[in-house]
C-alpha cells in the first residue's frame, strides 16, 4: 500500500474539505450556543419553586440523556416531518445536537451557579442592584470561571459528535471525506485529511480555552484545575470520549 502525502495535502486544501470543516465548526458553534441556552433554562427550572416546573426539567434530562444522540438526530430529521415540522438537514442537526447538549449543560450551569456563595448575592443586593445586574456583574462572571473547563470539554465533545450528522446528509467534514474516499478509492488519504482537520480544530479549541482561563484567572494563585496544554490534550480528550 502506498500513501500519497501529496494527495493528502491536496485534499486538505481542496474547497470541499475546507467547506466541510467550516460546516463542522458552524454546527459545533450553533449547537453549543443552543445547548448553553437550553442548559441555562433547565438549570433555572431545576431550582424553580413550582414542583411541576422542576419535573419538566427532570423529565427533559432523563429523556435526552437516556437515548443515543444518533437516535435523536435521526428522530428529528425523519419523524418531525410526519408531525408537520419539516427542517433542513442543517437545522435538524443543530436542533438535535442542541437539545442533547442542553441536557448535559444543565448540570454544568447549575454547578456554576451553585458555586457562587449566597453572600455574594446579598452583597450585590446591598449595593442596590436589580436582579439582572446581579446576574450580569456578579453571578455569571464568577460562575463562568467555574464552568469554563467543562465548557471547553463539551465543545470538544460536540466537535466530535457533529460527525454523526453525516447520517442525515449534512455536508460536514466526515461526510465529505467519506464521499471523496469512495469516489476515488483513496480511503487512507481522504480520512487522514479529515483527521488532520479534527485534530487541528480540537487543538485550537484547547489553546483558546487555555488562553481564556489564563485571562480570567486574574493573576491569582494557581488552582487545582490548572492544566498545561499537553495535559489538556491527553487528559481532556480521554474523558470527553467516554461521556456519551
Amino acid at each position, binding site marked *: 500500500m502506498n500513501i500519497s502525502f501529496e494527495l493528502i495535502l491536496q485534499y486538505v486544501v481542496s474547497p470541499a474539505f475546507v467547506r466541510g470543516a467550516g460546516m463542522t465548526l458552524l454546527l459545533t458553534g450553533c449547537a453549543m450556543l443552543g445547548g448553553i441556552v437550553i442548559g441555562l433554562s433547565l438549570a433555572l427550572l431545576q431550582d424553580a419553586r413550582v414542583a411541576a416546573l422542576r419535573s419538566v426539567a427532570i423529565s427533559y434530562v432523563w429523556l435526552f440523556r437516556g437515548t443515543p444522540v444518533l437516535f435523536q438526530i435521526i428522530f428529528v430529521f425523519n419523524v418531525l416531518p410526519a408531525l408537520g415540522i419539516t427542517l433542513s438537514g442543517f437545522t435538524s442537526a443543530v436542533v438535535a445536537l442542541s437539545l442533547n447538549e442542553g441536557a448535559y449543560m444543565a448540570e454544568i450551569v447549575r454547578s456554576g451557579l451553585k458555586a457562587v456563595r449566597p*453572600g455574594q448575592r*446579598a452583597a450585590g443586593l*446591598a449595593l*442596590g*442592584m436589580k436582579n439582572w445586574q446581579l446576574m450580569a*456583574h456578579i453571578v455569571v462572571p464568577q460562575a463562568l470561571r467555574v464552568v469554563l473547563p467543562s465548557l471547553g470539554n463539551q465543545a470538544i465533545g460536540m466537535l466530535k459528535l457533529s460527525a454523526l450528522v453525516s447520517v442525515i446528509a449534512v455536508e460536514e467534514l466526515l461526510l465529505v471525506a467519506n464521499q471523496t474516499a469512495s469516489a476515488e478509492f483513496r480511503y487512507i488519504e481522504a480520512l487522514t485529511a479529515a483527521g488532520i482537520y479534527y485534530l487541528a480544530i480540537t487543538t485550537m479549541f484547547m489553546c483558546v480555552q487555555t488562553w481564556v482561563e489564563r485571562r480570567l484567572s486574574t493573576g491569582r*494563585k494557581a488552582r487545582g484545575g490548572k492544566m498545561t496544554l499537553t495535559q489538556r490534550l491527553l487528559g481532556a480528550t480521554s474523558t470527553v470520549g467516554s461521556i456519551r
Partner: protein
Amino acid sequence: MKQPMENTSSMLLSMRGINKMFGNFHALRNCVLDVPTGSTVVIAGPSGSGKSTLLRCINLLEFADSGSILFEGQQVADQRSQAFATRRKMGMVFQSFELFPHLTVLENITLGPVRVLGVDRQIARSEALALLDRVKIPSKAYDYPESLSGGQQQRVAIARALAMKPRLMLYDEPTSALDPEMIKEVVDVMAELSEAGMTSIVVTHEMGFAKRAADRIVFMEDGIIIEDAPKDVFFSSAAHPRTRSFLDQLSQ
C-alpha cells in the same frame, strides 16, 4: 425599655412593631428601634438572638412580616418592589466581607457607583482612590481581594459601601471573622466614620468599639430588644438582669 423621646423628624430610621418568622421560629418580636441622624447604635446579644435579622430587615434583605420602618420619613417596609432603591441609600458590611473575587479592589468599589448610580467612570475611580486613602490602604487598588488580609478586605468592604454615599451604614458582625490583631484596624476606621457623623448601626460583640463610638447600646435576646440605653447607662446600670450577666461575662 426607654421610650423614644425625640420627635420622629430628627430620626433617620424609626422601626415599630417589627415581627419576623422563619417557619415556626419567631426571629423578631415587636422590635422598636429609633436611630437619630448622626448617631451610632450598637446591637449586642447572644448568637441567634435576632441581631443580624433585625439589620437585614432594615435594608430589606429580609422583609419583616409586620411592623413599620420609616427611613428618612418614608415608609419602606411594604415597598418591596422599590427595595433596590432603598438599599442604595444604605451601606452594608458583612461578617465574611463578601468582596467580589473576580474584581480588583478598585473595581469592587466603583461597581456600585458606576452600574447602579450611573456615576461617570473617571469620577468613580478618583472617589474610590480617595476612599481607599480614608480606610488606609491606598496601595492595594489594583490587587485582587484574595491577596489581602482579612482586616484589609473588611476595610475595602467599608470603602465599597461608602462609595454609594449612604445615609446609613449597617455593620453585621464586622470583626467576628478577623484575627485579633486585625480587629483594631477595622474598629479604628468604623469609629472614625462614626465620629465624623456617619449614622451607623453596628451588630457586634466588640465592646471596645461600643465604649469608644456608640451613642446607644441595644441588647437583644430571643428576638426581643430587652435593653435600649445610652452607652453610659448601659455599662453602669443596665436594667435587665440578662444584660448584667452579659456584662459580667465580658469583664471576666
